[in-house]
């Protein structure tokens, strides 16, 4: 009889917990709002894939002190949609933190919501403006990737080693491209390099030979590529080769993608590409583990999207674990994250947040790679 009663009771308890009717004191809900369609999907889809496989692994290994449930939304690379999804995640699903939204603009749009509803956003974007202290919502936005400024600084420092004085920039016509140019001018000047010519193109440009010709005619000694659309990057290097623009090219992390490496021919061997880690081709120990998890789930590592996505999840997990059995709200999550420094993550480098610095990752997570034989080899 007693066994039957306890069986019924535990079944009832399980039913209550799984129906979600009463949020048990234990389970924590985390929102994932990423760009799963639209131009930023090239990063958003790998980010989501990594979050999902890592979540499975953590559950299987019993590494979670309390159950974490993910709710996943697509912000369609659109700021209006991003705010809708964030509202939905917070109001309907009662999440206590959100990994996302997927792009800088979407994070800026969702920032005020995070402030009003007191739920932190962990943004996987490099756009400087999201952690600008002047933002009213600054306390509620964290960056789980190195910022654009850090990226540009590291790749330009590598470029400066080649003693180039006059450099040219090719950028894509969007926020990423434009801010990259501005930083290149600013940081290049401190490194003794002058940006003598800049050319740009929209995502769907069909011919870039004119742009490449213009850079060649300006006599640049090195070319900086601020591009995140791999077909655009591939078009440009092809065009550069065609018109005889022989200056060495250095690409920012936007092109550190498998689809870029595989779409260019051997004529661009030696192209330097900045990357956040090197998951697909030359992984560190942690990265190799992540790659293994992805491959087991049938996903092919694309670049650094998976790493950045996992950064977001690992930050959340560290914060949840650090709070033990206490009640978790958006406010407690934010406070805990601000106190995290040095916790397990798959990416290289030591992640560290503080009240004054909401940028968790820095130079130590970046590597310079070189394109050879359709692969990006890490330069030692």
């Amino acid at each position, binding site marked *: 009889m007693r066994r039957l009663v306890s069986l019924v009771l535990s079944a009832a308890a399980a039913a209550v917990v799984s129906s979600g009717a009463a949020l048990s004191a234990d389970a924590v809900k985390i929102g994932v709002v990423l760009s799963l369609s639209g131009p930023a999907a090239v990063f958003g889809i790998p980010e989501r894939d990594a979050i999902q496989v890592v979540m499975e692994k953590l559950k299987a290994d019993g590494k979670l002190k309390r159950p974490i449930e993910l709710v996943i939304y697509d912000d369609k690379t659109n700021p209006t949609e991003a705010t809708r999804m964030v509202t939905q995640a917070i109001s309907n699903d009662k999440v206590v933190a959100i990994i996302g939204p997927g792009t800088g603009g979407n994070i800026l749009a969702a920032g005020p919501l995070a402030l009003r509803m007191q739920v932190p956003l962990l943004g996987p974007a490099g756009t400087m403006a999201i952690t600008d202290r002047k933002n009213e919502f600054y306390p509620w936005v964290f960056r789980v990737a190195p910022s654009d400024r850090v990226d540009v600084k590291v790749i330009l420092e590598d470029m400066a080693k080649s003693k180039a004085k006059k450099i040219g920039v090719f950028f894509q016509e969007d926020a990423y491209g434009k801010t990259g140019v501005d930083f290149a001018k600013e940081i290049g000047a401190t490194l003794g390099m002058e940006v003598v010519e800049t050319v740009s193109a929209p995502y769907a*440009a069909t*011919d870039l030979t*004119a742009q490449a010709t213009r850079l060649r005619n300006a006599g640049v000694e090195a070319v900086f590529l601020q591009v995140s659309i*791999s077909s*655009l990057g591939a078009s440009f290097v092809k065009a550069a080769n*065609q018109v005889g623009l022989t200056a060495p090219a250095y690409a920012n992390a936007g092109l550190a993608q498998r689809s870029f490496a595989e779409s260019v021919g051997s004529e661009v061997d030696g192209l330097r590409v900045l990357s956040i880690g090197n998951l697909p081709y030359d992984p560190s120990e942690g990265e190799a583990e992540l790659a293994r998890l992805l491959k087991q789930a049938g996903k092919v590592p694309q670049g650094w999207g998976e790493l950045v996505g996992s950064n977001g999840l690992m930050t959340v997990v560290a914060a949840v674990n650090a709070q033990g059995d206490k009640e978790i709200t958006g406010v407690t999550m934010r406070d805990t994250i601000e106190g995290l420094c040095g916790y397990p993550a798959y990416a290289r480098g030591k992640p560290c947040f503080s009240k004054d610095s909401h940028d968790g990752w820095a130079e130590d997570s970046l590597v310079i790679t070189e394109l050879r034989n359709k692969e990006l080899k890490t330069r030692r």
Partner: protein
Amino acid sequence: MYVLTEYIVRGIQAGSIYGLLALPMSLLFATAGTIDFAVGAYALLAAAVATIIAGPLGIAVAIAAAVTAAAGMGVIFLVLTRIGTKDHIVFALASFGLAVAIASFILWQFGTQAFVRASFSQFWSLGGIRISPQGVINLGLGALVTLLLYLLLYWTDLGRMMRAAAANPSGAELAGIPVARIQFGTYLAGGLLGGLAGIMILYSAGLDFTASLSLTLGGFGAAIIFGITSPLRCLLGGIAMGVAEALAAGYTSGMVTAMVPFLFVLIVLSASNLGGAMAGDRP
């Protein structure tokens, strides 16, 4: 001077792609009075398929895929005419719906990868200007297609029927010409030419899943410059647009270069009478 010439040469090479996209626009407008927004999507589809399947087989399958998609549009067109749709904008909107659907299908099936293939690593030199053989092939193909179209339109019975259907649809109908079938065939031609353009882009600059609407607008811009109702001038229109873009990229800012196709459309439309009658006049 040399610099200017180089930009012009580059523009001519690039423009043949616009010309090829413009041809079906012009043909369709002449025979059915409407625009096929999905031409860029056919190009994208062909490029995507040819990226997956290598070699000549890939090209053949790619073009077949583009023609099949266009056949789908043709069927939609026939259904719409059967139920009595007279407003040309409805056909255009339906083609837009198809364009959106195809782009989404490509994202779903092929992912976010770039569609680009290396072609030639050797370059020819034309008076010191390096030219890729691919660019010459593109131009040659464009010229060949235009020639074939000319022969078709003016030397064959089918061509005569097409011209009749374009000039006076009801009269042609009365003369026993299957106007609806010709219009369907024109949509198919759009698939063929769009697919061909897609292959050409694949081997030149490459593209990805966001490209379809820009390609369509570029093709439309090239089509209207010298008169949308004369398909044979489309290649010239494409070259004009390519040269304008190259000059803009070479001498002005990114902003102006991006505006070139749209400014083309605006200037030409405001200065001309698209397709004849003033809006709203009784025929």
